[in-house]
């Protein structure tokens, strides 16, 4: 099985090679001795070289036998990471559709409930209050005081 460093190295190698191919379409410069492709090629070759080195080092370590890492105290809670990323992506998608106020209220309330599910009416009330206060305070502070025009909803006009 591929080691973590090999995955990193191969991903970066693929990216750098793909971008190197794209530099072929860039024009030469009439003003300076080097064109717009000159510097990108240097950094992409550097990245490709380092990626290969990382893969080679990982392969060598793998052959020598990977040292057993220190055991973590608890397994990472990836379920909550996926939940948070999903909630954030939904928030970003809904922001221009529902507008800042509605989307932010739903996001702050929803993510709180997902991260720590409320088990009592009091806790639900707290979740709602925090969602309302966060939305109102950020909206008023940025729109009224700091002159930032926050997104309006295409669907809601709000």
């Amino acid at each position, binding site marked *: 099985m591929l080691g973590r460093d090999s995955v990193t190295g191969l991903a970066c190698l693929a990216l750098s090679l793909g971008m190197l191919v794209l530099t072929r379409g860039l024009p030469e410069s009439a003003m300076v001795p080097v064109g*717009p492709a000159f510097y990108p090629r240097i950094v*992409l070759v550097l990245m490709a070289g380092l990626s290969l080195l990382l893969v080679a080092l990982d392969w060598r370590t793998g052959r020598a036998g990977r040292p057993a890492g220190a055991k973590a105290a608890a397994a990472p809670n990836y379920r909550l990471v996926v939940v948070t990323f999903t909630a954030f992506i939904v928030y970003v998608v809904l922001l221009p559709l529902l507008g800042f106020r509605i989307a932010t209220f739903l996001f702050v309330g929803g993510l709180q409930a997902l*991260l*720590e599910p409320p088990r009592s009416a009091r806790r639900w009330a707290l979740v709602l209050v925090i969602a309302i206060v966060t939305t109102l305070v950020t909206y008023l502070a*940025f729109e009224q005081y700091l002159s930032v025009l*926050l997104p309006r909803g295409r669907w809601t006009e709000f």
Partner: protein
Amino acid sequence: MEVSYEHLFASILAILHLKYLVPLLLGTVAGVIGGALPGITITMTIIMVLPFTFGLDPLQGLAAMTGVYVGGSAGGSITASLIGIPGTPSAIATTFDGFPMTRNGEPGRAIWVGVWAAFLGGLLGGVFLIAATGPLASVALEFGPWEYFSLFVFALSMVAGLVGTSITKGLLSGAIGLVITVIGSDPIMGVPRFTLGTDFLRGGFPFLPVLIGIFAFAQLMSDIEKMRRDGSSESTGPMPKLWVSQPKVLWEILSRPFLLIWSTFIGILIGVLPAIGGSAANVMAYDQAKKFSRRPEKFGTGIPEGIIASESSNNANVAGSLVTIMAFGIPGDAVTAVMLGAMTIHGIQPGPLFISQHPTIAYGIYAAYLVALPLMVLVIAAGARAWLRVIMVPKSILIPIVLVLCVIGAYALNNIMDDVYVLLIFGLVGYALVKLGVPLAPLILGLILGDQIELNMIRAIATDPSPWLFLTRPISGGLLLASVLSMVLAFWQHHRAKARGATAEEEDVDF
């Protein structure tokens, strides 16, 4: 460039005006709370404060950020001493003796030795900041494009070599940062590069949304991973008693002048070196204090020396980082990287000409830094118990609020959703890189310096096409040689650590 003390005093008086004092005070309070919150670094706090500064005038915004920086550096010691969890990576070494001191029944002493050491270390660092920035900027004024190119390469090589446990990954991280900067129009002809025909990528990736995305998600998702499976919050103990005799605590520090000065020196030095940051400074200062001590065996049992070394070095580190950004335009750590972004939004380019072109802002930053130190002491004195209650806010409440502020920070830059999409993309990238064990500091520095490296390289070649000039011009050649030496040193240290059987540590997401 001589220091104008008249200008400095005038700036201090100006900062004491409510217009600047209020943002500075609010920034300091935010810094103390953010610094004290375990899992919320100073970088995260400054990212949260950033959108509030867009509508302010440049000095008001920078004063708020300076307050966060100074307050955060000291705030981290509160949780480090009271619950044994460093509020920020720059307070890691404070836990070594601060927490044992609390367990020995002296929580007030643990906190206040830390606060006063931070104050005194910060003050000494401030003297260096004011005295050294001008002369260093004068040196940088002599630089041509060859020297700038080599300086930036040196900064990058240093960070890649010194951060993290794998030099190859550090360098690769720096290269990823450089590659991100080549996306978008080229700096000479404006030819679109790697834009895949979309307008979205034509202007390249804006720096601040990338920075916020990478740091915020890397940090927050790492915290979320550690949350309990049932979603419940950590329980907290009763409020400790924090009263202590202040003169006695101050004497504890002042009676150890060598320790204070040496730790401050280490803090400044690490701060001046690009992007290494307070997390390295406090551990290094603690290690030095232990080596020089007549009672090294007592370290770790709750003695004041350990707290003094850690706290004085991490606040002096703030001053060192400010020197580097103001004299060379290179951020000393992630916090100054955000400050650099904020300055460019206001049309200010930090660098050698910064002090001469924007003296009011430069002296304003000096003044804000000096005023923030006593403010930090007052803020902690006035509200230590109140801040402790805020610190105990569950992560499930804090994280959604922080994410909303990140979105506003990215959106408010240009009032467009594209910057929020960039935030999301680099949030995913940042978390993936953390999981792959790639250090983030070199990437950020590559991202900051990439455009400047390309611009100076092309300027140099356009002036004289001979590439040998990079090596034969004394300063440029010296800097390139220093880059090679720093890499050799990093390889040697890495090899030595391996030979000693050192175990790999988790990457820290803060600089």
